[in-house]
């Protein structure tokens, strides 16, 4: 999941895949805007054919938290 997510992340912000760490924070470290983040989750939804709850997703701060959340779905 981490690998898949890292690939998608690089479509939204200018960061090398190898620089994305589990503890990287989307906004502070990777430079996501809130709408970048929402759009990325939308792409994750489509690629993985899952449904994300936007209210729950608002509490995700790090890449690891996103991986944990997605794996639970």
């Amino acid at each position, binding site marked *: 999941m981490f690998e898949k997510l890292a690939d998608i992340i690089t479509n939204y912000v200018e960061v090398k895949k190898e620089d994305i760490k589990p503890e990287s924070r989307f906004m502070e470290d990777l430079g996501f805007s809130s*709408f970048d983040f929402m759009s990325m989750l939308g792409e994750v939804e489509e690629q993985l054919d899952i449904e*994300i709850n936007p209210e729950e997703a608002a509490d995700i701060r790090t890449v690891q938290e996103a991986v944990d959340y997605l794996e639970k779905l």
Partner: protein
Amino acid sequence: MVKKMSQTYHTIRELLVAAEQNFGAQDAFRYKVKDSGDGSKKEVKVEAKTYTQFKNDTECFSAVLASLGEQGKHIAVIGPTSYSWVVAYFGIVGSGSVAVPLDANLPEEDLCELIDRADVTTLVYDEAKAGVAQMAENHCKGLKNIICTGEPQGLVNGLSMWNLIGRQSVGFDYTPKPEELATIMFTSGTTGKSKGVMLTHRNLAENATCLDMGLESGIVILSVLPIHHAYCLSMDILKGLSIGSVICINDSLLRVAKNIKLFEPNMILMVPLMIETLAKKLEEAAWIPAPLVKAKVFGKQFHTVCSGGAYLNPAYLEMFKKYGITIWQGYGMTECSPVISTNYGAFMKDGSVGKLMPNCEAKVVDEELWVKGSSVMQGYYKMPKETEETLSDGWLKTGDLGYVDQDGYIFLTGRKKNLIITPNGENVSPEEIENKLGDNRLVQEVLVRESEGAIEAEIFPDYEYAGKKKIKDMQGELQKIIDAYNKTAPLYKRIYKLKMRETEFEKNTTKKIKRF
């Protein structure tokens, strides 16, 4: 043959009646619904409502409010954009009541405080906000009715909006007057306490309809912005209905790209933050011919973005033009219902936030832009001091520095008021956040500001206190304070940058921290 409609309406009811007469059988709204089918995976399908169905539903909801004895009262609406939300809004204002749209993302305590402060007696809420309804039922003493747009659960006396509507018949007999109060919208204040902007039917209806932007009836609009904001309510909904557009409802910011493919809009109202993200999507495939990229991201039929709410880097206008998309940059504030000026059609000027609206005049006082006209608010609800500070003999002090050229185009040069305008158009009061952070003993002084599109807090910690408490990792401790605050704050008010300083802030003569 598509009709071009252009007429100024003076009440929201008048606007709706005319729209129904002109476009009755045409779709007014399209939105997604979930169809469980066999009970396994939920399928999504699109449902539509015509102008006639919509008008009928709003009249029934007006009748519901009258039957509850709530005609003329203050009715709050909380929830994301939905067909029910819009029916509730038009039903409220059409009955002569005052709609109070509230930000569904605010913490529940804050929403209850606003319900009390706005003297709300009926609450209409979306199922997703059941927590607020439960808290309001227990704590908001003035509330008489709580109506859910779905099934009310967990409430002692919850009502179901569509059950109530089903018991009424079409044709509610009431004609609101242009000067009647229609809406109270809350906006961030510079003092930290949000202010209820009072807007009449005339304020809103004339703002939405006094300018013919050359849009054709049948134009498909995807509504993506939060509906409790004046920009979305006025430009997507009121203007959209007045010109006979098909308004498609975006169910979540997560799904804008998906919904663009589904609804195939011609136009979307956006804030700069969205334009920036979509620009990246366009540029991602820059080696492919521009028309193909545009077709992939927005669809072939797409042609216009209206931008408002915050500053947009003019470079995006040129960039989108390459893909055959025009960006109409506008300017406004809730206190002006909200549009003050807009670029559109052939009326565009580089560097300008657009031509002054026909119902608006402007002047510059000490470099600050003041505007006057039929869309200027009546004042802030129960805040006479703040009203007096903002309105002067009918002139609205915008807090923005700028000028109007000889052709009536507005150019902005800076801000006078100390308010953070985030790239998604939300207004955030730095003092509100500073006060919250300042409650912590470790924070001696704090300054909150915008930095490269994000909210930043700069803190001068209380080193003496830290010494007593044997705090070694000061940055880590301060980050914990920020994290705790962020947990309670809606996304747009969260702090994403922390700076620590070792010396006190420079002060002005009144001992206040110098902001700039």
